[in-house]
């Protein structure tokens, strides 16, 4: 009998504890929640930086949920967060995989929480089906791949005539797919440039290093290496250095990691596109807050404003110094007054 009583005590305690903050939060401040992959990636870590700054400015609590590239953990953490805040929250989410948005949308719909999604969404899922899903925003990945490819082609001995190899990201990611499509678009426009071979390095520096080294052995006479992000570009640069080609055969990336700017300045890298995840977090959270407070009428938004794209900041050898001063050495003040000021096109 005693054992039974003890075994009932813990769940009872847990129940009480879980309900208490609920009561507190439901009456109190809205929690700002960012869902990211992990703090080990500078890009994702900056989501948290932006969110925390916004939280400080508005005097609201901030929670950071990291999925560690595990979709199940993502869902579990979100459920726990909903329980903790009682639904009194707004979310800016960068989901682990595109299909994850559906369970997330349902959970947040049921909890009555407004949210904004970044990057990954299956094309057939409609944002308009979920009244609390304010927007799906992605960077123009195609545009990114295209811009970097064009910059790379310009550096060939004969501009727009040459051979390249490509290092792709995780093949199931929207970003990877989009950027590679951008590359292909640039290739189509420049028939003088030939893509010899590509490998997937899954956004990882070491893998990109290995892949580039192997590809260089197969194709010793390439003129450029197109990489889908900066992490991989770093690995590629190292492989080029060992082959004695760094500075002669250039590399592109995307994301805007600090070391990328150094590489551009040093002449190993051509260009990258900076995605300011601090801006993304603040933007997403502000938009969701506006919806929650009634300042933004989600139902009346046309579909092109429910799922859309924004540009990143293009950085190359010409503007890198200015850019570093403005964006890296400090966090710029973001103008979040007109949400659709940077609208760059509808996304599927």
């Amino acid at each position, binding site marked *: 009998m005693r054992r039974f009583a003890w075994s009932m005590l813990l769940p009872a305690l847990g129940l009480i504890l879980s309900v208490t903050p609920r009561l507190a939060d439901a009456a109190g401040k809205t929690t700002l929640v960012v869902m990211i992959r992990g703090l*080990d990636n500078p890009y994702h870590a900056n989501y948290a930086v932006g969110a925390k700054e916004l939280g400080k400015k508005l005097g609201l609590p901030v929670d950071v949920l990291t999925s560690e590239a595990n979709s199940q953990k993502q869902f579990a953490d979100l459920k726990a967060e909903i329980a903790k805040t009682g639904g009194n929250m707004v979310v800016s989410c960068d989901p682990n995989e595109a299909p994850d948005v559906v369970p997330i949308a349902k959970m947040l719909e049921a909890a009555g929480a407004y949210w904004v999604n970044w990057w990954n969404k299956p094309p057939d899922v409609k944002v308009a089906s979920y009244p609390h899903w304010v927007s799906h925003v992605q960077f123009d990945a195609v545009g990114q791949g295209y811009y970097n490819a064009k910059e790379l082609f310009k550096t060939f001995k004969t501009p727009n005539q040459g051979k390249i190899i490509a290092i792709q990201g995780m093949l199931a990611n929207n970003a990877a797919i989009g950027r590679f499509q951008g590359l292909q678009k640039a290739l189509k426009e420049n028939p003088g440039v030939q893509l010899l071979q590509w490998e997937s390095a899954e956004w*990882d*520096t070491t893998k990109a290093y290995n892949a580039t080294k192997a590809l260089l052995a197969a194709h010793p006479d390439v003129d450029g290496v197109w990489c889908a992000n900066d992490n991989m570009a770093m690995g590629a640069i190292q492989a080029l250095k060992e082959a004695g080609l760094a500075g002669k055969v250039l590399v592109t990336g995307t994301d805007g990691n600090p070391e990328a700017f150094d590489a551009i300045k040093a002449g190993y890298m051509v260009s990258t596109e900076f995605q300011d995840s601090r801006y993304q977090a603040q933007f997403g959270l502000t938009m969701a807050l506006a919806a929650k407070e009634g300042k933004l009428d989600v139902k009346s938004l046309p579909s092109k404003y429910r799922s859309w794209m924004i540009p990143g900041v293009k950085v190359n050898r010409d503007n890198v110094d200015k850019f570093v001063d403005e964006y890296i050495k400090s966090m710029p003040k973001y103008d979040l007054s007109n949400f659709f000021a940077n609208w760059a096109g509808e996304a599927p």
Partner: protein
Amino acid sequence: MTTATAGPGRLTPFRERLPGPVLATGAWFQRTGIAAQLLTLAIVVGIFAMGTGGKYLAWSNVQVILSLSAIPAIFAVGLHPTIVAGGIDLSLQGVASLIAVFVGFLLRNQFNSHDLGLWIILVAMLIGAIAGAVNGLLNAALRIPSFIASLGMGWILYGLAVFMGKAVNVPLLDTRIGNFASANVVGIPLIAVVAAGFTAAVQLVEDRTRLGRYMYAIGGDEVIARQAGINLGVMKVALFTAAGIIYGLASLLLTCRLGISTSRMGLTLLFPTVTAVAVGGVALTGGIGGAKNAALGALIVTALNDGLVLMHVSPYIQQAVNGVVLIVAVALTIDRRKLGFIK
């Protein structure tokens, strides 16, 4: 090889006639069994040489294979003692990431004023040793299965690495070790020579010292080894610590060669290392395999993947090929008698 028909303890008549040293070498080969691995390597090379019209055998490509297989080989040499002794050390992801972060912190870089120089070698070995010792104690003193203990430690260390590294990638300004790792000596990648020498040294310890001998004894039958008076606890801690030190060195080399310290560095290392060890002929059930097996396995895996790239095999298929190779390698090397039940 069985002697049931030839009388107790005697070989078949053919083998009897071979001279002593040949028999001894043969037995040595048999125990560490690299004959099969050399054959596999020959087959792999042959297939790709034909498939790429000889491009595979170009010296530049051979250099790439040697260069890319060296560090995985050292990792594999680090992993295999714990496997031979009947356990496994899965913490290398965490150790590698942690070392990477320390290297980024302590070697000359643009974010702080530390400039440890070549002392970083000792630091890497020390961190690896401590991590390994903790693994060993968890296994030996607390009797936690090494699979779980080391995997858990790996994640703890990885989390520590991420926490310390704060997601910043640190380019390394002190490039001495990096240059060492990329240099060539008479055309052969220096790092491959280092890896080969290191493998030979470890193999020597395994063959001719008590540490090595007892490692095989424990892997063969732990109960009997204990009855014979071997101190299991001391041995296990020693082996895990050795593994940690080796991981430390390999991680240091890898970080320096990449020229940049990333806290994610370890994540992609575990699978290829386990595959390398299994392909090399180190049985996951223990008691069989030496350093040269592990290193040779890494060489074979690297040669295989390089060949796949050279032959333009779709990257989608490459990962699957690696998975198949792992399964086949394990299936061929494990001693099913030791598995009471397959879990």
